[in-house]
């Protein structure tokens, strides 16, 4: 993994604490949702982000409000890191009308366009062309907005990745691809999904397009943050697209219900030792940025927030069935 150079000492204490809070919020939100899913309160499919929190957090910390992002089937972390509210997220997962998509999207399609969050996407690589279009739009409207697309290692095998980055390379678009390498696409390991030539460094997929390639430890939120900052700055300056591979691991199944037969013995445990939810608070405490008590407070505060969010979701109404016919078009109704 290429080193990020000396870590800038310049990350402000407050930002570091903010990143910790974001990671805690993602972890707690998902852990609770995981239980509610097991209790059959949350319908549909559930792909958890647990283990990958440092990635969404580090990336989004480096963005501005005016930037755009697209996400994946595993999108809760991206949403929370982007600042979406956990109550409306929970309500969406519960299928309630107070949810971000009024119950029409669910886990795989959470979006908040007002926050520049152009949606989770149930199609692998489906968000990449959309982000490319946002980057194009940013450029055509003469802004310095940047578009970030999160996607998994698996998405690199889809043509949509290739066409988008090729176009971004030609047009020098402010497009940032975040490859979340969590070692698996569904239940299949990387070595069955990528040629040997790519396994050591998935950013090689960006090589033809002249993107800036970076590779960072996806369990290290600050490494992710700093790499993203650099890529974002470059994109804002008109120097074109970048691809950042964040090497990490997912701690839960591909989706809830996955037997996880495919994990070699000990692999999960080994990665868990690098759990950013363990290592980062420890680091901040070591660095004197945080006390153990403050850490506990953060945890408690966010636990309460998530509890409230779940209550909000529970207490919200299911959409009236007739709402199914609304929202297909700008003029309201369904097709005749």
């Amino acid at each position, binding site marked *: 993994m290429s080193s990020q150079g000396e870590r800038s000492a310049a990350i402000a204490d407050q930002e570091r604490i903010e990143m910790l809070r974001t990671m805690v919020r993602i972890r707690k939100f998902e852990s609770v949702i995981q239980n509610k899913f097991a209790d059959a309160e949350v319908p549909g499919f559930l792909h958890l982000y647990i283990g990958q929190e440092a990635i969404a957090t580090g990336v989004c910390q480096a963005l501005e409000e005016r930037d755009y992002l697209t996400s994946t089937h595993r999108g809760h972390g991206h949403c929370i890191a982007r600042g979406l509210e956990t109550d409306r997220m929970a309500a969406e997962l519960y299928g309630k009308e107070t949810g971000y998509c009024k119950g029409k999207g669910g886990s795989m*399609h959470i979006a908040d*366009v007002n926050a520049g969050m*152009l949606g989770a996407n149930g199609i692998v690589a489906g968000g*990449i062309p*959309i982000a490319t279009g946002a980057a194009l*739009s940013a450029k055509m409207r003469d802004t310095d907005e940047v578009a970030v697309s999160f996607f998994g290692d698996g998405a690199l095998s889809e043509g949509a990745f290739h*066409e988008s980055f090729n176009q971004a390379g030609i047009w020098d678009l402010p497009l940032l691809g975040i490859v979340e390498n969590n070692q698996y696409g569904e239940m299949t390991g990387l070595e069955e999904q990528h040629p040997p030539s790519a396994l050591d460094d998935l950013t090689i997929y960006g090589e033809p397009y002249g993107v800036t390639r970076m590779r960072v430890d996806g369990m290290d939120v600050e490494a992710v943050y700093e790499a993203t900052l650099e890529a974002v700055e470059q994109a804002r300056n008109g120097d074109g697209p970048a691809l950042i591979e964040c090497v990490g691991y997912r701690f839960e199944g591909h989706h809830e219900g996955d037997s996880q037969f495919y994990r070699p013995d000990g692999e999960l445990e080994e990665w868990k030792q690098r759990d950013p939810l363990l290592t980062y608070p420890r680091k901040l405490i070591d660095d004197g940025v945080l006390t153990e008590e403050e850490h506990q407070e953060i945890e408690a505060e966010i636990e309460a927030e998530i509890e409230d969010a779940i209550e909000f979701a529970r207490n919200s109404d299911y959409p009236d069935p007739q709402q199914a016919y609304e929202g*297909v078009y700008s003029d309201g109704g*369904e097709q005749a």
Partner: protein
Amino acid sequence: MSTAAGDVEEMAVRDVINQTLGEEMERDDRVYIQGIDVSGRGGTSNILKGLDDRFGTDRVRNTPISEVSMVGSGLGAAATGMRPVVEVMYCGFLGVAGDQLLNQVAKMRYMFGGELDLPMVIRTKNVMGANAAAQHSQALHHWLAAIPGLKVVCTSTPADTKGLLKAAVRSDDPVIVFEHGGVYNRKAEVPTEDYVYEIGEAAIERPGDDVTVVATQNQLWNALEAADRLSAEGISVEVVNPRTISPLDTETIVESARKTGRCVVVDDTPLSYGTQSQLSATISEGAFWDLDLPVKRLGVDNVPIPFSPTLEDEVIPGTDDVVDAILDLA
């Protein structure tokens, strides 16, 4: 709809497209074009010739040969403040962007709760009768109409080309505009004033009493010619132009069928699962008590379009076939 009173101008469909897009680009600087060779060549069939000089290559933007990205990035641009007009040269290339059409463009607004405007146009062309063989000779408006969430229109005449294309560009929803290579050079009068058709409204192109023919694009011209010929024989044919394929103007179409009691539906899509089946079902159910005879579907037989002229002529309906179908019912 605000059809024009006032001045008219005789124009070919191809020139109407160029003029209309030019007007819309003047009107709103968020409107831009992207596609293969749209600059330089002027896009497919050279329709866009000169727009690059007028608006620059930033707004008339050549893409690489990448339909996924062309359509998908159009969607992303539409979601973030632009109003793209994407050109897909031949409708047969829509398949390359299949996911973008099926899952992204069609579903994004709805999945996200219904409030996101997606002002995006995809222009493409049906092609028949050009000996272009199966991949280039296709009519696929039925295929996109089969995806809920897409508005699909077919342009046929100079006048409806203007009204529908303006409607598409100004719509805050994705609209797929199917042009037809076989009508690009057709000429007729077009009102010079600015007007916008309602998406979802059919038009009676020619009123009549004995038989209704619902027809699109090339087949609309065939139907009008057939109606002319048959009027000499005392048969009065009403010709309906659906204009919008999805959503369909069921009311206008069924009303005409109820009046005449006899219906031919003719279109360049395949006979099975094509536009004709949707029309036949709609008419058969909606005009059930008034039909004197079964609806007659006319279209492309269920084969890919063959290359050789003798074979292609065989599978695509021509004016004679429309005449015969009408005579069968009259």
